[in-house]
Every structure is written in structure tokens, then in C-alpha cells.
């Protein structure tokens, strides 16, 4: 795998994780306010742009690598999103949830490797 491919995989993963966090923030706010406010619109737009970047990068990578090769990286998103949701969004994260997320990630990697 070239450095470029690795770099694109990382960019795709980071933009996907960031998009999820921003979306969660925007949607959680709608339970308190309505949809017509500038902050909500800009957050949703920003996360859709990030997801689109991640989507096309993945599509480009799929043309060069097997899905089974790229999938472990998607598995890592479970760990990253769970940790970042706890750190950035201050969601409650107990040992059980953390271990669960870790097992899911390891499981996804194993499924893709074999």
C-alpha cells in the first residue's frame, strides 16, 4: 500500500468520525429548539460535506483495494466515535460500553482479515 492510499484512508476515517459527532450535536439540539436556526443548518451542512468527502474517497479506494482490506479501517470508527462522543459530547461512557465497542472493533477486523 502506498503512502497516498494510507493517507486517503486516514482522511476518510477522520472526516467520517467528525461528521458523526457534529451531526449528533446538531440533532440533539433539536430536542430543545426548532430546526430553523443558523447553527443547526450550518452544522448539518458541514457534516454532510465531510460525509461526502469520506464517501468519494472510499469509492476511489474501493476501485483499488478489496472491500475486505478496507473494512478493518471502518471497524476502527466504532472505537473512535465511542471515545470522542464521551470526550467531546460528554456522553456517559462506562466500562461495559467501552469493552463492547472494543469487541465490536476487534470482531470487525477479524471478519475482514480472514
Amino acid at each position: 500500500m502506498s503512502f497516498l492510499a494510507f493517507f486517503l484512508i486516514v482522511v476518510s476515517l477522520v472526516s467520517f468520525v467528525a461528521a458523526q459527532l457534529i451531526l449528533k450535536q446538531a440533532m440533539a439540539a433539536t430536542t430543545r429548539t426548532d430546526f430553523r436556526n443558523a447553527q443547526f443548518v450550518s452544522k448539518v451542512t458541514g457534516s454532510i460535506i465531510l460525509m461526502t468527502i469520506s464517501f468519494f474517497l472510499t469509492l476511489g479506494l474501493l476501485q483499488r483495494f478489496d472491500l475486505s482490506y478496507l473494512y478493518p479501517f471502518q471497524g476502527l470508527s466504532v472505537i473512535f466515535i465511542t471515545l470522542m462522543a464521551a470526550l467531546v459530547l460528554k456522553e456517559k461512557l462506562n466500562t461495559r460500553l467501552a469493552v463492547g465497542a472494543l469487541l465490536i472493533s476487534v470482531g470487525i477486523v477479524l471478519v475482514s482479515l480472514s
Partner: protein
Amino acid sequence: MQNRPSGFGNPWLQLALSVACVLVSELLLKRGATEVANTDSAWSWTGVNGLASPLVWWAILLIIASFISWLYVLRYIPLTIAFPLSRVVDILVPLGCWIFLGELISPLRWCGIALVVVGLALVAKPIAQIEERL
């Protein structure tokens, strides 16, 4: 957390719908991207040439549908619970290939599937308690 709607508006049902759409779209995307693959072109690194495949467009429609369900899920369920649960799709894809396409699943892959199931059970267990508190 405010009261959750029931019926079609139930966030857990929407989570399941979102997962189903992602499952089908992943398979369509891989087939579509392979169909029109042209790795000689530098542009293909961006993936935009994948748009030449109708399968990719069907996948995009499903992704939009799953996205709308997912937005709804995010309104009600914490990300630390909703996201790990949404990855049930990662074992549904190989299981789908095994059941419908007759592909073989190696012992190592079965171990991976078992790990994901245990992880999902750990994440899903507290949900019953959260629902009780509401």
C-alpha cells in the same frame, strides 16, 4: 431525554431501518465500483467515476434513506450506544453472503462474528435499563 415516539417513529425501529439500508447499499457500491473501475486514470482516486454505474446511484438513494433514519436516531439515542449498535451491519454483510450467495465463512471469520455479537450484547444490555428509567 424527552419522551420517545412509538410506532414508526420509534428510534430503535429507525435504527434497524437505517442498518438495513446500509447493508444493501454496501453490496451495491462494491459491485458498482468494480463494474466501472478504471484504475489507470488519476481522477479515479476521487471515486467520482463510480457515478457512471447505475448501481452506485441506487446505493446513493439508499444511503440518503439511511441518513434520514440515522438523523432521527441521533435525536433520541446517545452516540456511544447508537453507533456501536449500527455496526451490526458488519456481521450482517458476511452472514448475508453466506446465506444468500453460498460463500464460505472461515473459522477466523466466525470468531470475528462471535466477538461482534458479544460486543453488541454488552452495548445493548444497558438499553433495557435506560428504557425502564424513562
